[in-house]
């Protein structure tokens, strides 16, 4: 008997996708990832819009990483229009992005992933069986949102982050409040990292793929791509190098670098590429399942970084300043940054202030090829396992990438 069967729909991930398991003689022999999410054609929607609308629209690609999308889009547009924002704006944007990182990682670890390790169905299961862990996660998540709200005006689709600056600069009082909370949660996080590293292994030892991340800027920002093989590609040529193309069976484009190589992006890649010595062996280890720990480590880093940014802002004195005015110019702008799930690229062309071309490459689209390959590896490793066991392992494996399918398809 041969055939295929879909995992009904991937759960505890953002967006719509399935994994199709191919079977032969009762055994699972292969797997296909299918991101069937409905496309919104953002790259086409943006064409024809005014420069001051592009980021507002583009951030709607995804809610969980809307802050990252917003900031990347703003930077790309500003680059195209040759707009220089103030240092304060830069710090605030960075802070918002770190807030997004905290929120997203806390959500992924405590609401979406942890249930796999603890044997429950989701956050509702956690609430019943592991209320302490859930509460801890929710507190971290709330803090991430508080940062995003303070800077962005709202946790999802942060309108206060505008072209050229911010609408209203947060009050020092409010920043101090956040700083206090960051400090209060800081010690707790060491516990979280310990807790996560003590969790039982949940997957067969599927090795990670070569890594890729943005670098050359403050944490999560950069102007170039760096790969674990040592390759470096500047932002302006990144899109060509990432080489997105359409493949059958997915509404998300797939990146085959140079037409062949496969990389993975995300927390594991970032840790491996940017701070190999500071973290535990296991977090940067070569196994895919270390992703969860990598996320926990990054959570800690994000808290630290947010604290530093706030101190900087307070030391330098936050104050209201009007956004830098833009003129409807012509030009090209490309911004790279690290969204919670990995490298994100926004690139726009403007003609007298009107967008004439848009290219957006998202982490989950980049990871797509890596997910496919990892699925194959997993199935080989699980050679003799039954369907149900393979199925649930496949879902766990996909969750290691914390895919954001709306982003991938956009």
């Amino acid at each position, binding site marked *: 008997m041969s055939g295929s069967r879909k995992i009904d729909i991937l759960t505890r991930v953002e967006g719509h996708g399935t994994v199709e398991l191919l079977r032969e003689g009762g055994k699972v022999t292969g797997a296909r990832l299918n991101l069937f999410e409905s496309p919104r054609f953002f790259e086409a929607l943006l064409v024809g819009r005014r420069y001051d609308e592009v980021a507002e629209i583009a951030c709607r690609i995804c*809610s969980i990483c809307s802050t990252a999308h917003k900031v990347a889009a703003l930077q790309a547009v500003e680059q195209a229009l040759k707009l220089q924002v103030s240092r304060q704006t830069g710090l605030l944007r960075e802070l918002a992005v770190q807030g997004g990182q905290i*929120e997203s990682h806390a959500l992924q670890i405590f609401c979406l992933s942890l249930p796999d390790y603890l044997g429950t169905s989701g956050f509702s299961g956690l609430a019943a069986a592991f209320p302490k862990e859930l509460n801890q996660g929710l507190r971290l998540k709330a803090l991430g949102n508080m940062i995003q709200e303070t800077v962005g005006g709202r946790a999802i689709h942060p309108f*206060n982050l505008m072209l050229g600056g911010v609408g209203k600069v947060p009050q020092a009082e409010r920043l101090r409040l956040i700083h206090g909370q960051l400090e209060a949660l800081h010690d707790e996080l060491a516990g979280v990292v310990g807790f996560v590293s003590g969790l039982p292994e949940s997957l067969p030892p599927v090795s990670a793929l070569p890594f890729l991340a943005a670098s050359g800027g403050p944490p999560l920002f950069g102007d170039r791509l760096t790969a674990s093989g040592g390759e470096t590609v500047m932002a302006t040529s990144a899109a060509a190098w990432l080489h997105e193309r359409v493949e059958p069976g997915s509404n998300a484009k797939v990146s085959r670098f140079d037409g062949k190589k496969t990389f993975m992006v995300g927390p594991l890649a970032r840790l491996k590429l940017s701070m190999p010595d500071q973290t535990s062996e296991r977090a940067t280890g070569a196994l895919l399942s270390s992703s969860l720990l990598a996320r926990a480590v990054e959570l800690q880093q994000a808290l630290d970084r947010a604290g530093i940014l706030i101190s900087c802002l307070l030391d330098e004195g936050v104050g209201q300043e009007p956004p830098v005015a833009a003129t409807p110019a012509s030009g090209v702008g490309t911004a790279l940054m690290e969204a919670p799930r990995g490298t994100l690229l926004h690139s726009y062309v403007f003609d007298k202030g009107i967008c004439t071309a848009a290219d957006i490459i998202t982490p989950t689209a980049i990871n797509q090829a890596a997910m496919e390959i990892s699925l194959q590896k997993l199935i080989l490793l699980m050679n003799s396992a039954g369907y149900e066991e393979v199925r649930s392992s496949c879902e766990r494996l996909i969750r290691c990438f914390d895919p954001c399918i709306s982003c991938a398809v956009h």
Partner: protein
Amino acid sequence: MKRLRVAITGLTSCSGCQLALLNCEAELPQLLELVDFRFFPMACSPATLESDYDAALVEGCLSMPHEQELLLSLRKRSRYLVAVGTCAAWGGVAALKNDQDREQLRQQVYGTDSTAALETFSPLPLNAVVQVDATVTGCPPEKEELIGLLTGLLKGSLPTLISYPVCTECRMKETLCLLTERSALCLGPLTLGGCGALCPALGVPCEGCRGPVPEANLAEAMEIYLQKGYAQEAACERLRRFCPGWRA
């Protein structure tokens, strides 16, 4: 008390409305005692449609046949179907170019020789296909609205859509009017309130994310925008960002 059995899902969307619910960190533990999230693929496993639901909360607009299938199935299984968010209520950003040929848009993104997303159609709000019992608008909706929706449903009542504009809430907050005092293209007068005038309160003009107010006086608003230096077409384009139905 009997827990409320709900199904929550997203169609063509960014998952922001669902995330807005998951962002109710302070309330989630208590909410879990009142609400049984039966079908909520974004946050709970497994995602199998089974039995009936007291209410289905649906985010996003419709743009592919598989979504229509899911929506019809949820409609059949649920006592109440609630459109959550601007996309579900009005079409949202995804419907930005509904006046253009869908196939052309598809080719613009995927190229002429691909078969990806062949079945896509111009995004529709939910009420174009099913009966919608209540609407919570917003991109995304406010937390309080979602909590209110759930506590109301628990008692068998549906929320009523706020019908006054953002300006009213903006004025209640005593913030500076960006339209009259700063000549900004603020869509507050034409946009449904309920957000507490979040944007204008921070000095950012309302971008119209909650959809049109009933009885909008578009002609007069256009007149005012024109006085402030905005061409009708520019103002209309801005209006259509979240609701393709706007026509001047």
